[in-house]
């Protein structure tokens, strides 16, 4: 069972900054690659099983590390997370979202784990590391935080699609509901314990190139 705290952690209304980011959808929509519900589904599915899975696996591993004797190796986790993000633009986005999430999580679930993270990484942690720490503070287990990561990967993209493309919100709700089994399956793979270096880390070359290009636009609705 997913504990209620997961609902808040995966809620785009938690002031963690995610609403300002389209998960690459603004670039994909401008390129004409996402323009209707079927193409949105294909986009979201590919994103979930690449960067969504990578984020979920790092968040789950971070959550497990929080209960390690002597505490988590925050710098080591952060370096592993950064090594999974090839695009410099997306590394910056990840740090910004990590800082915002840590702030929101500290407000919602004050916890020595979050204080420890903030002290160890004064410049802020990458988003998956902050998400794992927030999950630990909220009392989730590694699978639950992986579900949150996968769900956010889906809903941030589909939410942006409603705003950018004016898609039928009922159709988008059906699309998201149809992807929940995929979210669960991705979380299953993400939460399987492994050494950090061996965690799944699929990447999306299109999202990397799209994010670099998007960052150069003069006018855009979303930060990434």
């Amino acid at each position, binding site marked *: 069972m997913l504990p209620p705290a997961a609902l808040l952690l995966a809620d785009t209304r938690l002031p963690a900054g995610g609403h300002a980011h389209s998960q*690459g959808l603004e670039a*994909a929509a401008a*390129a004409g*690659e*996402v323009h209707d519900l079927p*193409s949105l589904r*294909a*986009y*979201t*599915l*590919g*994103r*979930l*099983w*690449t960067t969504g899975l*990578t984020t979920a696996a790092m968040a789950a591993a971070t959550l497990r590390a929080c209960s390690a004797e002597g505490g988590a190796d925050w710098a080591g986790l952060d*370096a*592993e997370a*950064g*090594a*999974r993000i*090839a*695009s*410099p*633009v997306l*590394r910056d986005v990840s740090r910004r979202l990590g800082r915002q999430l840590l702030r929101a999580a500290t407000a919602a679930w004050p916890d020595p784990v979050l204080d420890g993270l903030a002290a160890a990484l004064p410049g802020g942690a990458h988003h998956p590391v902050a998400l794992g720490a927030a999950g630990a503070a909220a009392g989730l287990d590694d699978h639950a935080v992986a579900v949150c990561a996968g769900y956010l990967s889906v809903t941030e*993209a589909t939410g942006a699609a409603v705003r950018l493309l004016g898609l039928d919100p009922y159709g988008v709700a059906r699309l998201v509901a149809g992807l929940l089994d*995929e979210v669960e399956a991705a979380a299953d793979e993400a939460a399987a314990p492994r050494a950090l*270096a061996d*965690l*799944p*880390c*699929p*990447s*999306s*070359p*299109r*999202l*990397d*190139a*799209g994010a*670099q*290009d998007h960052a150069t636009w003069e006018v855009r609705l979303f930060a990434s």
Partner: protein
Amino acid sequence: MIATAPAPPRAGTSRLRAEVRIVAEADGRGGTRFAVLRGAAPVSLRPTPDGLHLVASAAGPLGGDVVAIDVRVGADAALTVRTAAASLALPGRDGAPSAVTVTAEVGPGGSLRWLPEPLVAVAGCRHTASATVRLADGATLVWRDEVMLGRHGEPPGDVVTRLAVDVAGRPLTRHELRAGPSAPGWDGPGALGPCRAAGSLLVAGPGHRAGEPAVLSPTAATLPLDGPATLTTATAPDAPTLRRLLDTAHRPPR
């Protein structure tokens, strides 16, 4: 008339377990010599002026095959590894997965250039090509991965390529590409897109200047990493276009 029987296909039971070992050392006169050069069927090793060639002496990798390649490049030694031809990841009879795993270490001042021809992920294959590279401070690495997603006119089997590189014990990159029926959405706009070829080129080392990120095409970019390294990732409609995109980005470290 006596018909000549075609060579029998390798039976499902003849799975290959191969361990290949390569140790290159500085020879003290500015060159490099091989301290160990041990091939194992199906991989034989041919030193040439252009680099060390890995030559596959059997079709494959075939489902069930497991090939481990261990490479050591000592301090101040330089090694270039190539393959004679594209390799074909083929399905086995019983659906068993195949794997080629490379473990490499490069010492200070050493250089490893890993420049194989593409891997072709034939329909029905289940193949993982995984590399773990540990660089000492001051070591240089050029690493190319290219995958053709199926032969002409066929969809690819399941293929995963993975590159994990550490520099002086710190993670530099963890980069994985997945394609095929077990990778949901892989050919959609959120992952690789409708391409026939995908790949990456990592250039890392002290002489390398990362420079500015560059978007080479809507599906290719040169991306400076945290560290003295650049990763170029690309998808393309065919192998020559992919190679061109990756070569464009390659500025050999001095």
